[in-house]
């Protein structure tokens, strides 16, 4: 019931913001708002891992990048010559309707993988990598886990930076739109702006509902138990390592989905999306939102990502998030939206 009210409020705010931009003639904000919505998917997924399962990941930009880059590479790599050369694999998948033929800017034929197929492959790859990383790494705790996930993030960053099919330092561009339904296309088309805002927000609403369901379920309760006293949770019959692993994989998939669709929306992806500073930013936002507080993480995520995308932090962008992390850890480890702070503040002031 409480969730129903919250979800209604969320949807209401999404609509209100769009109406506000259209009445005030500030429709250009929608671009950053749409991007912010996709970033929020990473935030809420990471919130599940950090706040509820009590684990940390300093490598979530890596999963975002795996999603975005896999999609981008598959949907921009021109397969025309391979088909002409009679490559049997390409012929086979082409015959199954898994490829899309189009023309590039110069009218030459291009043939690329259907974005749906690319997205499914990207998610599949993310799941596999999240399992492979998660199984050994989630045995670690505290700083060790933080460092191991940081290492993972660095590896992904260096891979995209050094691999030709990922565009090296330039990243990938000219990523085509993603046709979700006939007429419903995720792309950066100016005329499609309002539509795309709602698509991105739709992802967030669905993501929030799924995670709220999970948090309020038997599994969510088990996760909180693991967070509170892992050995007791295990003794009560909870397969703690499996629960931590699945949570990690789910949040990796959230990050990958954000990566996939933001890449189609922006029409490209660059190596900075895989950078360590991005991972740190996500952790900082979950922390300032109050860790075990999905709504707090979402609110702070929207606010800070939007400000950052609007360039409000100038060239101190990354520094701001670093500073946030330090300040939160020092003064408000329960997050900024946690009531006790306001109570303490009020007591100090009055």
């Amino acid at each position, binding site marked *: 019931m409480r969730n129903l009210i919250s979800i209604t409020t969320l949807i209401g705010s999404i609509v209100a913001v769009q109406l506000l931009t259209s009445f005030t003639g500030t429709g250009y904000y929608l671009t950053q708002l749409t991007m912010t919505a996709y970033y929020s998917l990473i935030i809420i997924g990471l919130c599940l891992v950090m706040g509820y399962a009590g684990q940390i990941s300093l490598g979530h930009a890596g999963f975002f990048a795996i999603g975005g880059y896999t999609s981008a590479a598959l949907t921009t790599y021109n397969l025309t010559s391979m088909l002409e050369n009679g490559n049997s694999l390409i012929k086979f998948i082409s015959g199954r309707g898994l490829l899309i033929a189009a023309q590039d800017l110069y009218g030459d034929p291009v043939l690329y993988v259907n974005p749906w197929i690319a997205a499914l492959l990207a998610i599949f790859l993310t799941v596999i990598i999240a399992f492979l990383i998660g199984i050994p790494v989630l045995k670690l705790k505290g700083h060790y886990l933080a460092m191991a996930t940081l290492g993972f993030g660095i590896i992904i960053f260096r891979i995209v930076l050094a691999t030709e099919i990922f565009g090296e330092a330039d990243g990938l561009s000219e990523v085509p739109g993603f046709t979700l339904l006939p007429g419903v296309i995720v792309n950066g088309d100016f005329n499609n702006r309002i539509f795309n805002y709602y698509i991105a927000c739709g992802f967030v609403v669905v993501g929030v509902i799924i995670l709220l369901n999970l948090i309020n379920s038997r599994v969510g309760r088990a996760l909180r138990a693991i967070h509170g006293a892992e050995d007791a*949770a295990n*003794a009560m019959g909870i397969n703690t390592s499996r629960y931590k692993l699945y949570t990690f994989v*789910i949040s990796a998939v959230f990050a990958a989905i954000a990566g996939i669709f933001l890449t189609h929306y922006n029409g490209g992806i660059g190596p900075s999306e895989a950078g360590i500073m991005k991972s740190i930013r996500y952790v900082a936002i979950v922390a300032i939102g109050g860790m075990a507080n999905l709504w707090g993480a979402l609110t702070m995520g929207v606010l800070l990502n939007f400000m950052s995308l609007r360039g409000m932090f100038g060239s101190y962008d990354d520094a701001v998030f670093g500073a946030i992390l330090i300040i939160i850890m020092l003064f408000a480890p329960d997050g900024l939206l946690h009531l006790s702070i306001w109570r303490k503040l009020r007591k100090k002031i009055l």
Partner: protein
Amino acid sequence: MALLEINNLSRSFGGLKAVNDISFSVRSDSIKAVIGPNGAGKTTLFNLISGNLPADTGSVVFKGLPIHGLQPYQIAAHGISRTFQNIKLFPGMTALENVMIGRHVKTRAGFTAGMLHLPFSRREEKEIKEKSLELLELLDINQFAHIEASSLAFGQQRAVEFARALALEPDLLLLDEPAAGLNIYETAEIARLISKIQKRGITVLLVEHDMSLVMDISDEIVVLCFGEKIADDLPAKIQQNPQVIQIYLGDDDA
């Protein structure tokens, strides 16, 4: 056949033999006590049985199945649940939620059911809640159901942990000093409760310092000292065992 058989179980910490070649068995539907001075290895023994610690050597056989080497959650699923000497409730969760965790092994809604809020998981959740409330009632702490468990008084926390352990509907319940820190009324209450759950068909293995409690309710008693088994007998025999008397009353070991 015994419900639980412990064979030549050993565990060392560094050079210290905390549990040294211990063997005994626990009959179905009985109450067996493990006693011994502080540091005798009682808690370590419990941790070895519940899988919270791996054994160096020896075996633990439960219902005819070897369970040493299994993870604690697997052992719990086999029907052994426990309480902890230094209470381990889940912080930030209410008394009710703590007990609901105990229903985990008896229920099955997983990640998919949770994320999609499937109808069967809603039904299951309702059952979990009802069963847990019943247990809180059994322990007479239902009025604290919605209070954060770790903010309750000590005796009430023990009761919550007890209810949580019972929620697994175990065949064997391990109680590590269930009466520690309780006053005489609460201790008498715990004794009554242990007898009651035994009559419901739950076998109990308990560590306890309160001798009157142990002598009252136990069918058999194992005595440990410095990791070794000193005696394993009926309460009346234990009371007369010179070695045990020496440990408990002797001047050199006091």
